[in-house]
């Protein structure tokens, strides 16, 4: 039982149990607040009955024409609340908003090529590796660009994998 609602500033002061996890990055304030200000529908918190922040998802919608898409910037769940498909629920919400409200063609995300648990989870949720981005993370580790097609993309063109890896400067968006 989880109340999923828009992420708000006060949550920033209560999400330490999610963010102290070594895989979860704590961004600077303008990063979070820019997401809240620009894409409030893409930033959600899951809250427990005791009103603790269980996890959250932040993302955005961007692109043009057929590359108009939702993007998952971060999704994270506190260890106490793992193994109950909460990340899936949050991902589904973002997909639904991208699909129904914003009529996007696909949702994409970046993941460290070494982060197998996460990659497996995204695969289970229907994401495929669209392309590899060389040395995407701090110029060292490769990133995988994973995608899932939405209903607008009837022929699922957006997820046909690229044959060749790309470099970060070839990326269309930040």
């Amino acid at each position, binding site marked *: 039982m989880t109340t999923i609602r828009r992420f708000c500033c006060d949550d920033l002061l209560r999400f330490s149990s999610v963010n*102290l996890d070594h895989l979860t990055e704590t961004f600077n*304030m303008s990063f979070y607040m820019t997401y809240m200000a620009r894409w409030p529908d893409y930033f959600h918190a899951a809250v427990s009955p005791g009103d603790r922040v269980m996890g959250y998802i932040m993302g955005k919608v961007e692109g043009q024409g057929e590359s108009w898409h939702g993007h998952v910037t971060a999704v994270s769940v506190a260890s106490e609340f793992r193994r109950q498909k909460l990340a899936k629920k949050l991902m589904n919400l973002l997909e639904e908003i991208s699909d129904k409200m914003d009529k996007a063609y696909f949702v994409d995300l970046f993941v460290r090529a070494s982060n197998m648990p996460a990659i497996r989870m995204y695969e289970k949720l229907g994401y495929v590796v669209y392309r590899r981005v060389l040395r995407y993370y701090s110029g060292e580790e490769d990133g995988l660009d994973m995608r899932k097609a939405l209903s607008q993309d009837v022929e699922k063109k957006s997820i046909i994998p690229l044959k060749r890896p790309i470099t970060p400067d070839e990326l269309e968006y930040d």
Partner: protein
Amino acid sequence: MASKFGLAGGIPERRVRPIWDAVDSRQYKAALKLCTALLAKHPTSPYVLALKGLILERMGKPDEALSVCLNAKELLYSDNIFHFDDLTLSTLQIVFQRLERLDLATSCYEYACTKYPNNLELMMGLFNCYVREYSYVKQQQTAIKMYKTVGEERFLLWAVCSIQLQVHFSSGGEKLLPLAEALLKKHISSHSLHEPEALALYISILEQQSKYDAALEVLSGDLGSLMGRVEDKLRLQGRLLAQACNYAAASEIYQKILESCPDDWESFLHYLGCLLEHDVNVPKSRTSEHTLLSVDSALALKTSLSEELVESRLSSALSFVQKLQGNDTSECVRGPHLANIEIERQRRLSANPTDRKFIEALVNYFHRFGHLSCAASDVEIYLHMLSSDEITELLDTISRSFDASSFSVKGLGLAITIFKVQELLGIFFSKSTTELQRIAKVMVETFYKNLPLSRDLDPQESMHGEELLCMASSILVQLFWRTRNLGYLTEAILVLEFGLTVRKYVWQYKVILVHLYSYLGALPLAYRWYVTLEVKNILLESASHHILPQMLNSPLLQQTADLVKDYLKFMDDHLKESADLTCLAYRHRTYSKVIEFVQFKERLQHSMQYLSVRSDSIILSLKQKAESLEEVESILENVNHGARLVELSNEDNMKHFTFNEDLQARPWWTPTTSVNFLSEPFHEGSQPACFRAKVCEHKSTEKDDPKIKDSERKSLLPRLVYLSMHGCAFSLREAEPNGSGLGTDAAEMKPLLEKYSRSIGYSIDDALSVILGMSSGKKSVKDFAPDIVSWMSFAVFINAWNLWSNELVIPRADQSSPSSWQIVDNLVKICIEEQLIDANQILTSPGNNIPVLVQMITEPMSWHLVVIQSCVRSMAPQGKKKKKGGPSERPNIPRLQAIQRSVQCMIDTLRSVQSWLSDQMRPEEQALDILLSYLHGASEDGPGQISCILEENSARHNPELGERIAQSLETWSSAGVVRRIVGAEQELLVELKKICDSKLKLLGSESASLSSALH
């Protein structure tokens, strides 16, 4: 910005672009060169001047930047200016903002808007200026003007938002709500609304005026379709209906929400509330700063319905919830099952307190979800309502439901939940020490036995059963509390270090270790673990509390200064940029976030921690540099001599303090920064419930007096230090009555000292008699122990004041009464001696008094040293400062003698600290043996068993563990951990010794100067 270059104050783009490129790539010198060249051609171009100002500011030349920009501003104001564009203004704005002169930017835009009244771009610039200055009324006026000029929806909503901000932040602002409503209505009737956020704002304007029916009507009309998600619309409808007391309709709406989102717990509580017609007071506290489960608040809601009606409504709720349970095929939706418990709780409340169904619902919940990590905390508030018989029954039933000897993730999860339930209920407090040892052992063994379950997990993933080690460690701490046997505390550490050897990422272990090492006096280790947590950005506000208070009272001055610097940089930077983000929210028409961002800024600005750390930061620099009067002076000069801090601690500010620390992860024995149960005696037979109540009480009184008083006192310190040294400079010259400005300084000192003594809880007169009493041995220092450092500082300041005040500060009965110097001397001597006598061997006495000793030496003693240095300097020849023909300067011999005695007393006291410290330092091997001996006690009952298990397990080669885990275990060594503890404790002593050394050196040279002056 490239597109704007063509308009840049008439300057061709190709000339300007290279300058911007240079700025963007931080080639400021090159940029300045280009800019100067351009300026030669266009000497009166405000735009080029603004650019130059921008470059100078980036180069770190704020004064020059300001003067260039002021020049540009003047040119803008002159009549013959030809080009007047937003690019010039916005460039100036950037520089003025960085120079913290928002007012100048605003006045530029104000002027421009008067000159070109209908220029939308300029008006938007002006609006943003007002947003940055938090001038809500002017924001509103400007937005209305824009709305009238172009009639766009967004500008109207900017105005309405500005009204909302007035409602929230100025008294009487709510009178404007009808105006906002009227404006919106009029606009809607001709243009409708087109943004979901606009609709939400409109509804909230109605809601704030309690016009719920009107709001509902809007929502169900055409505008309602603006809401993107059906659930969001329904939630809003439900809330409005409930507020309008239309409970029947509201509960139907909530039912609909639950049908599509059965896990939405908040909606369920609303649903039930509406059925019972007591609505929306959900047992939770989103707005409060510390989340705190309060059983009372959950129980307080009573319905006014008859018993029969309640029963029938609850029955219908139950059958609805059961239907939801049936619909779920994923086995993951906990909501409807928790709902079942809540319904039974309501039943129990209304009619049947002994009804079995409540406990049955709990048992069912555990059967279904007991293996989940959050199962116990999910139902925590319900567990506290059980009688002790029921608790036993519950635990028995769950225990019987699975086979503890079999290995499965689910079985392990359940076993953990059973432990957690006991932990939450405080049951461990009523167990015997033998029993507790056994339980801790079982926990550690269970962890090890189940390690094979995690063999194939990625090293990044949390492993099964990690919580067991936290719980085992927590029990060992309790054993230490009860027996004071150091071995238990050592084992509590070992267990967690073992866990981190298995997997190095478990932050929960690290946090507890930070606290354990701090308590043990091995602060350097605490700091090292803390650093690995990578606390940064907003976590600095919510999680610094784990280490900062301990560091502030430690001799690790440099590391502490780093922590403080990082924290302040984050807070200062954010508060500066926060309004820009509000501008961004306006621009993107996210009105709800406009209000939220401003509220959040207020919250951070009033952070209690922020005010405290600002004082700490100055105090810390003073501590670091106390041996150099010049450096002390320059530190104080940079913070306008402490005056600003004194202003900040005024009562009006203190009323609005916020507490933003996330205390959730703190260990049970130190629920807040100011409490440590381990420093208090353990009361045998204390009931679990009592203990819990105690923890809750501490958390809820976190905001109370002591902390605020402490912070207030700290904010006075820098100013008091400044005034003390300033006054002393004149005090030694007899023939200078009311020397330059002295009278006013003396007058300022008194109210500050009054405030200072009040913050310790005494009037100034009473405080004086306390220090007199303590220094003469008539009053016991122990009676004033908690604030002893503040008392010592108070005495130091009183002495300083006494030196140059015209008032008789200390009533002296006769010549033999002690002078104010003697009072300080005696007090310092007595207090420090007391610490040294009381101090046990540091190695074997956790919670030792090193922090107090450090504070005494680095605070009051430092302040006193500053006073002494000031006095000594003022008696030296004045050199250039000497006024020609001024009064002759004869040294005040009795006073010099008093100072010399004081110097000698400080020297003696510090030497006794030095020799005590030397006694504490012992060869590493010897120290190691002493600590390890606690783990190898003879008795079968004592500590040592768990460290044995850890050793055995790591030594045994267990192929089931998989290569990765087995390899990490090979590196485990208890002795290695204990050796690090010994090393860290020594490190701390060495640092303290260094501080004493440098003070002694200074005192030596002061003593020499005094001798030569006297002879």
